[in-house]
């Protein structure tokens, strides 16, 4: 019996095996009850001690290797074979593995949406500082010192550091950005300025000492109340994704003339009156108006040459309306049970 020949042949055959059936045949052929290697091993006892020692080791080692190779190949072929799905089952009612994705604050999400809509309407997004000078927050906006009009803005004043020239405060609205932007850019202008503002007032479900606003400004040769109605109406429809009615009510802001409050037909009752709108049928969305000539002058623009509208919307309020949040303080509470809903 030529052991070497069997070994070479077996190695060759195993290398070219294509599927599990062939593999089984080879296994049978060499290692089965009447397999060639089995027979060789069985015949060992007939050999001389010297041959037994010499060949026995070779054959046994080879048998081991062959078994190993067959097992590996078997595994390989089994993996390649389609399994029988019908025998498997999972409990689909077990809870999913904890989601690793985090959560963005609802104001962030609303701010993005609002910025995106205004960008699509042609407004650039700009920002301004949270600490403002009295000049930008009040004087330049035609809100004179010691005037009762200032009472509408309860202000956090800063202790004056030695080197600062102006009296400083935490901006009470995002309107100073109008002035800052107009000082540096020539019309035509179309901007929105989102950001944090501050009011020194008692907190409750609808008031916080810090909150978010978005300021809007459009300045051109001819910009009218009619234009403002169109833009703000379109914005509200895009934001709430439904058709809404708007109305302007007369109001007073020192930095606009005429000034108005923006009302939107109630999202819930559509104007009939319900608990959400306190039976008014309308929801207050923010303040607006046509840029006051004094404001243009503050920004070194000639009011004879330019017209514009400006508006301010509460981002906290839009957020609360969008998600039906009933207490503004939740937004600043850091409560993860609240935040993980967004």
């Amino acid at each position, binding site marked *: 019996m030529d052991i070497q020949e069997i070994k070479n042949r077996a190695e060759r055959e195993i290398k070219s095996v294509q599927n599990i059936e062939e593999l089984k045949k080879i296994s049978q052929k060499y290692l089965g009850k009447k397999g060639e290697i089995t027979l060789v091993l069985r015949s060992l006892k007939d050999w001389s001690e010297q041959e037994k020692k010499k060949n026995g080791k070779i054959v046994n080692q080879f048998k081991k290797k062959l078994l190993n190779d067959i097992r590996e190949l078997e595994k390989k072929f089994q993996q390649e074979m389609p399994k029988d799905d019908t025998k498997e089952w999972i409990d689909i009612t077990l809870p999913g593995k904890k989601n*690793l*994705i*985090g*959560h*963005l*604050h609802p104001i*962030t999400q609303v701010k993005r949406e609002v*910025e995106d809509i*205004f960008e*699509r309407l*042609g*407004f*650039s*997004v*700009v*920002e301004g500082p*949270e*600490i403002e000078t009295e000049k930008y927050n009040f004087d330049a906006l035609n809100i004179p010192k*010691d005037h*009762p009009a200032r009472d509408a803005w309860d202000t*956090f*004043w*800063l*202790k004056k*550091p030695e*080197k*600062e020239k102006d009296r*400083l405060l935490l901006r009470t609205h995002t309107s100073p950005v109008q002035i800052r932007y107009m000082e540096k850019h020539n019309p*035509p202008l*179309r901007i929105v300025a989102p950001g*944090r503002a*501050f009011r*020194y007032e008692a907190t409750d479900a609808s008031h916080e*000492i*810090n909150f978010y606003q978005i300021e809007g400004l459009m300045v*051109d040769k001819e910009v*009218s*109340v*009619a*234009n403002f*109605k*169109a*833009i703000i109406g379109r914005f509200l429809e895009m934001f709430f994704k439904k058709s809404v009615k708007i*109305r*302007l009510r*007369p109001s*007073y802001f*020192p930095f606009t*003339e*005429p000034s108005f*409050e923006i009302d939107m037909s109630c999202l819930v009752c559509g104007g009939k009156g319900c608990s959400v709108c306190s039976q008014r049928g309308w929801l207050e969305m923010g303040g607006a108006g*046509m840029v006051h*000539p004094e404001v243009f002058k503050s920004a070194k623009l000639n009011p004879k040459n330019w*017209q514009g509208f400006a508006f301010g919307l509460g981002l906290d309020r839009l957020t609360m309306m969008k998600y039906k949040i009933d207490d503004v303080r939740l937004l*600043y509470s*850091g*409560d*993860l*049970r609240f*935040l993980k809903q967004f």
Partner: protein
Amino acid sequence: MLFSYNWLQSFFQNKLPTPKKLAEILTLHSFEVEGIKKIGNDFIFDLDITPNRAADCFSHLGIARECVALTSVKLKAQNVRIEEDKKTNIKDFIQVTVKNKNNCPRYTGRVIRGVKVKESPKYIQERLLSCGLEPINNIVDAANYIMLEIGQPLHAFDLDKIDGSKIIVRRAKNNEKIDALDDKTYRLDESILVVADSKRPLAIAGIKGGKSSAISKETKNIFLESANFNPLLIRKTSKKLGLKTDASFRFEHGMDSNMTELAIDRLARLINELGGGKIVKNRVDIFSKKTLPKKIKLDLIQTEKLLGLKISKKEIIKIFKSLGFEVDSKLQVKIPTWRLDITEKQDLIEEIGRIYGYEKITSVFPKLVLMPAQKNEEIIWQERTKNILKASGFFELYNYSFISKKIGDYLDSNLVELENPFSEQLYYLRPNLLINLLDNVSYKEKHFQKKEKIKIFELGTVFRKEVGEIEEKKMLAGMIFGDEDGFYVLKGVIDGLLQGLGMSDIFYDNFQATPDNSQRILWNLNKSAEIKINGKEIGFIGELSSRILSKLGVKVPVIAFEIDFDKLVGFCSEEQEYVKISKFPSAVRDVSILLPFRVKVAEVLNEINIAGGELVQDVDIFDIYEGEGLTEGRKSVAFHIVFQSKNRTLEGGEIDELFRKIIKALEKNADWEVRKEKYA
């Protein structure tokens, strides 16, 4: 401010619309009606009067004028006829001197003799109560009633208690005192205007009367004051004394000085009706600077341009006339003096807009030159940052911009202070985002299971005082707690974030001593690092110091980072270039090395890269071990070294040679011991 519907009706012969209808009209054209309350057979309107209209509309007369402009009602004549005692003359009873004419542009007075002080009739009491005022007696009630009717604050003095029959309007002397009608004593100074007699102050001008000359049951003869005071002065005094009254509220907004005459005559007649007596002939009237009606010419084209509305001249003239303005065919408008708010053309345009009705202006999109919105890079990077952190499992938080006094005082002295802090809890402006995030952690510890791993972040503004100037910075901060491997998790997040923002040269360096001490108190220096981009520090990462944790009552270790966002944005980049992927095979060799505990892995990596040169394409750490089986103070670190060339297949011999060179270089370090070599 509260207004009675029936009272308003009394100004007209014809009927007002129903309360509900009137409320709607006023809301759309004048002032928002915030509520209507039915009291008896009357309806009380709560109107939100804007401060610019105080001079005329802090009164029923003002609202009545609005009704005339907005409905078909016609105002009854407003002049009053009073019966004076022809035999008397006011000069014989009182002498008035106004010392500070700028502070008191007009002072009008009347005297009534022989009144009977008693309760007011029911209708007066009811109207006062409905409008939020307490009835006192017929004299005081009459003064309040006329104030609510016309808007002019009025005051009645007991004539017999005015010393020397003299009224002097002057500045108070320093430390002069007055016992006021609210049972309080006020200490006055030279900045405060008083109405005095020859001896002492009788009233704080325009704000509050004094007790000494108050109307009492025994009062028989009275002196009535109807004056006009400087709004600024009244506002300052009111603030200084912490005393806000119905009178000061009106005066500080500015009142029409032409109103005093009508008001005092109405008052005299009403008192005469309610309490009898005889009105002494003539008025005292010191009117130093007459107020004349302003004239403004309206520009029709500008009006149409600003409102976006075609409107006829005829319509405009009708609107102005309905408001009581005189107007000619050239649209020259004479503004009644009670309309203090109208000072320029735009104000007239607003009158047209609101009376005509903004609801009748049709929405029209502006016709403008196409001008694409500009990208705001900072906001783009900000939003991308938030997205990456969200994808890494972080919750975004919005915290207050304030920190408590307690923690602020502990931190450092460069905090931005408020003149009027909100509370001890919200006292200073936040100098970093970490403190409030930590506060969230301590709060969360109470609300969440201890085992939960939580990651939070905030992007917001912080404030510091730097060499006498205030610095406002945008910061990004975050923290992980409940994770034993927190530092490396967070470092991985930061790597991912910075790479996601287009940065490649990221380096973590030892915490350096800086002149700014504020960071040292926050971090555990042995477990913290500076984050560097292109060699420049942009922030910190590491474990927060035990002192700060215990100060805030946090009981678990917290790993945090804080990055100067403005600096970060400076390094953000959209630019990227494709690097060719090598077509040639790579080979891997592993090396394991025994190191002293405090040797940084970065030092080993550095050696490998230097010795291996450009054919070392990558080095990965695949195992770090310390503990059992190793000498104390030693750790074992294992690396895969990947060899690859960009332009050829490397031969086995070449790789082995390079690998031996690397091992030799590593072994040059005395304390480093290369443990085994494995060929893959």
